[in-house]
């Protein structure tokens, strides 16, 4: 394997471009990501490319490598960012809201729910709306829609309305705030109690929208067996939710 040849191939460059474009919406970030990945692959005499032992397909290895470097790049980007002092003064809950809304492009409404789920905020929604006023005035270069309480629309994390694709997401969306928070806690606890394989299967299929065959391959099961197992797991989630008085409205 000639790392220089691989790095100069249009195939690898297209892969890097594709991953960077998917992960960053701003053109400037995409370009910086692209250059960062190429520089990192060249670093230390192509150390990362030379680490390939041929145990997997080269294409899969390259994608894993590019994705790892893109995560590093994102960390560096985020690492350079500072939470405005006015926000930091309000406490950890405010910093978390700022991260959710400014950096991760969730809405303030979403942030409130996440805070409640994680136990970082115990006040009412009305109180929350009042208390976030200073956060809304803080600068946010990354998210121009920062001040909005509405869905950003261009959120990297899109809602799913297809019950067949993700029945748990569908259920959560239909619940009101209090029951949603309760349901999420139940789902989180149920997932944590599952065997490791089942946890990963649920994470990949319902947490990350991977296809059942792709997730089954990771778990080491035939796709049909994984599909049956997911049905069984959904029944378990349903029972746990019903036991807590949560049903589909």
């Amino acid at each position: 394997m000639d790392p220089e040849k691989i790095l100069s191939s249009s195939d690898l460059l297209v892969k890097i471009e594709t991953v960077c474009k998917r992960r960053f919406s701003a053109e400037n970030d995409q370009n910086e990501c692209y250059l960062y990945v190429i520089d990192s692959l060249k670093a230390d005499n192509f150390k990362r490319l030379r680490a390939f032992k041929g145990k997997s397909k080269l294409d899969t290895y390259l994608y894993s490598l590019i994705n790892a470097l893109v995560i590093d790049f994102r960390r560096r980007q985020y690492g350079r960012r500072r939470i405005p002092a006015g926000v930091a003064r309000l406490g950890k809950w405010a910093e978390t809201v700022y991260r959710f809304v400014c950096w991760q492009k969730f809405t303030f409404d979403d942030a409130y729910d996440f805070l409640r789920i994680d136990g970082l905020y115990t006040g009412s929604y009305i109180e929350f709306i009042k208390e976030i006023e200073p956060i809304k005035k803080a600068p946010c270069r990354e998210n121009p829609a920062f001040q909005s309480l509405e869905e950003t629309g261009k959120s990297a994390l899109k809602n799913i309305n297809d019950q067949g694709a993700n029945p748990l997401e569908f259920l959560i969306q239909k619940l009101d705030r209090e029951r949603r928070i309760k349901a999420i806690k139940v789902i989180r606890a149920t997932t944590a109690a599952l065997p490791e394989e089942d946890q990963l299967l649920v994470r990949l299929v319902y947490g990350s929208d991977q296809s059942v065959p792709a997730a089954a391959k990771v778990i080491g099961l035939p796709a049909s067996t994984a599909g049956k197992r997911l049905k069984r797991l959904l029944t378990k989630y349903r029972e746990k939710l019903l036991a807590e008085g949560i049903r589909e409205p």
Partner: protein
Amino acid sequence: MGKWMNKTVNPSIEPDSEDHILTEDLARLAEGAVDTAERQQLIGHLNRCQRCYQILQETLVDVSAEASMQPGSVPWWKTRMFYALAVSILLVLIIGGPLAIKHWTQRPPVILASLDLDQGLKDILLEDDALKWEKKERLNRLLTALQQRGFEVQELNLVLLSKPYYQKKSLFGPKEVLHIRIENKVAYLEVKEKD
């Protein structure tokens, strides 16, 4: 992806240690190319490490997207093209089969006829004294002449004349008849005097 489930079930922490899964091992896991014991170990780490989980799931997205773009990613016998081709062949066999069988099993028709040798035919015969006609122009002239006289002939590739034809000197000589046999696009010609 669903924002609620993503936030609810996916790993949200990253262990402080640098003991992450090797990139190539993540690639092997994405391909399903690890043994059971190793898989258990890797899955245990993935359920707790945000970074490794994220690399794996992004890799699955990329590999799946690339596979879907490659025409060869679907087995050839599952492609629409295959089924379309199969249906086309079947239709051709159903519609054209009987015709093909008829074509191959039946002997080509043989045309036998006698024509009074008129001036038009004489002109064609007198062009030269060759017994074997292969020139396209001459063949076409004979073909047209035969078609004008009611012969159902579509094509001639060769004409074989039994003997050279010469113009009779006598103005009132015996009438002549052209005997024709056409088989496999070959015409056999013989001029005989009429009794």
